[in-house]
């Protein structure tokens, strides 16, 4: 039972990590707590449903489309709206909350209220070893989560735009003085963050459902993970996702799932009492 729960916890952790990535990148680089994160996730899921389920575009390509569409949407919103609220954290809370409402209503008008399902690209195939039964798609989600974290690290540490993002994060005015076009880098940051949210929605859609409210729960899980890991720490977010996923899964095997969530949230509160900056953040809030 414990072994099954631990493996199950890896999958839960992967889902939480994927859902939290976009959030931490946008906050870490731009100081924006994106309350529309759940809705970008939902938009990505709908894009996958249209492209893969309705138009029969191959699954891998549909995932890329989900990323691109939500990234473009994010870029457009950054140019039209978000750039006017640069470094105004309270205002961005309100603006992104409004955006979340608007996105939900637009999707509701286009797709209606009926929940959609997306078939797994692996069908009903599953891995069975003794007591352990795991759909291949769950393994795919775990791999995708690892790949996304690695790609994000590569982007930040091995590319020119990544170095510019880090420079702006350290000192925006100095970066501007050194000739970095902060407006363009902000567009890339916001687009990359929203694109990751969309991709998360697409990945989650297969094992879950596609619905207008699907982003809300992942938004909450994402915020818990990012706050626990440290608001601007990619490594912290990855480790926090692992801890939350595993703890919820293992405890859930022995007590009720609702109580398991309560215990995890309580532990997060205790951690924040002693490390208000999160487990791995460099800067104190």
């Amino acid at each position, binding site marked *: 039972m414990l072994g099954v729960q631990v493996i199950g916890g890896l999958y839960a952790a992967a*889902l939480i990590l994927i859902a939290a990535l976009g959030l931490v990148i946008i906050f870490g680089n731009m100081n924006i707590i994106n309350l529309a994160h759940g809705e970008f996730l939902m938009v990505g899921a709908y894009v996958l449903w249209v492209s893969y389920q309705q138009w029969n575009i191959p699954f891998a390509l549909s995932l890329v489309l989900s990323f691109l569409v939500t990234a473009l949407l994010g870029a457009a919103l950054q140019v039209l709206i978000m750039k006017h609220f640069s470094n105004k954290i309270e205002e961005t809370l309100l603006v992104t909350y409004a955006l979340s409402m608007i996105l939900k209503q637009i999707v509701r008008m286009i797709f209606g209220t009926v929940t959609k*399902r997306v078939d797994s690209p692996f069908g009903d195939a*599953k891995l069975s070893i003794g007591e352990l039964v795991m759909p291949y798609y769950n393994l795919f989600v775990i791999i995708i989560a690892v790949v996304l974290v690695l790609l994000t690290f590569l982007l930040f540490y091995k590319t020119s735009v990544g170095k510019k993002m880090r420079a702006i994060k350290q000192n925006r005015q100095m970066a501007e003085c050194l000739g970095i076009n902060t407006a363009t880098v902000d567009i890339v940051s916001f687009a990359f963050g929203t694109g990751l949210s969309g991709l998360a929605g697409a990945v989650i859609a297969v*094992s879950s*459902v596609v619905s207008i*409210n699907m982003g809300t729960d992942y938004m909450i899980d994402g915020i818990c993970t990012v706050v626990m890991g440290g608001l601007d720490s990619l490594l912290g977010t990855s480790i926090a996702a692992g801890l939350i996923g595993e703890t919820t899964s293992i405890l*859930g*095997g022995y007590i009720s*799932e609702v109580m398991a969530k309560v215990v995890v949230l309580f532990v997060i509160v205790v951690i924040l009492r002693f490390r208000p900056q999160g487990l791995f953040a460099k800067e104190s809030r």
Partner: protein
Amino acid sequence: MYHKTKGSKEASLDPFVKEGGNSMKKFMAFVMVVIMIFSCMTGCGASKKEEEVIKIGSVWGLTGAEETQGQICSKAVQYAVKVVNDNGGINGKKLEVVEEDYQSDTTVIVEKTQKLLLEDEVTAIIGPAMLSGIQAMIPTVEENDGLAICPIPFTGEMDSDNTVFTGGCLYTQLEGMVKYMQENYGKKVFIVGSDYSYPVRISAYVQAIVEENGGEVVGDEYLPIGETDCSTVINKIKNSGANYIIHSCVSDTIYAFHQQVIDYGLTESGVGIGTLITTETDAASLGKTLEGTYSAYNWFNCMENEMSKEFVEGFKKEYGEEEAAKLNGNAECCYTSILLLAEALKNTDDYSAASLREAMGKIEIDSPQGKFSLNPDQYYYANTYSLMVEWDDKGNPSLIDISEKPIDAQPYPTLLYPDGKTE
């Protein structure tokens, strides 16, 4: 600034300007009188119009967790009102729906209920589709002496002089389902539900019925509302050795649960699944994941009687085939409730809550589910049929069991309340 002050002082001393001030006062008085006359005329017009229509409040979660059910129920109410009006209305008066979206938020429903009762002065309120919404609404309805028509299958154990429960009692449906599952799958049941009052009551009923029939409850678990990772609870079901599951998961959890019992190989091992939650509205999305599972309710769109077919066809003409495919027991119940209310309105001149409730309790009407009546001796709960269906791989139900006649309402079943309801 200086000139203005000076000017105004001068003006107050100038006799001509003072004369002009009086003219202004007279003019303002004239305008006020004209406005008052227009207001009175408008008021008279409104009250005359009000006499021509009878307003019904219709409150649903058209957004949020209830929206799938809320949308179809809202349309069923609109359609029923159209049918009543097309057939001559209520003694020459038309029914009019005043609709509110409570956003699936139990704090918002209080405000919406107050608005419907105090501002719109509706005769009765129908809705919502979630027990938590109804529980939140009833105190406000009681305070303002309104009438709430609760159109969902009910767990019972709730009564008020201001309510009628047209969805019948879940106990009626559960008893038939548990017996069927026990005969066909075995004696061990695992109960799963979303974490709120409705599934908790279902669980209490199932436990009592299972024990009465010599079965065994091997597990009872709740998932957070909207949870879409059901892997942990499915592992628990596997380890429990359950022969069948009774689930009452709601919102997105329904879809995730049905998908994941297949993904994790639970259905392959021959575990049966029965529910009172899954209906035609969800079936469109669930598709093949529903195959071989069972649902119980008071109506399904596969019922063959004439009025049922007429209801489905008429709705299809009004809203199209796609919407008609979502018609479920809740929607049918809304439709039937409005027909019952319309008959009651025809038989009473006084539209007070008490008179209407009493009138509704005296009538038996034909409905898509068959003969339909309320039981005044059982707190105005409906006597409903008990139906059970099996779903195919396209999400279509086929009838496998139906009671011969409506079963008497049991909001306080003797199995749980051997001494009857105690105050």
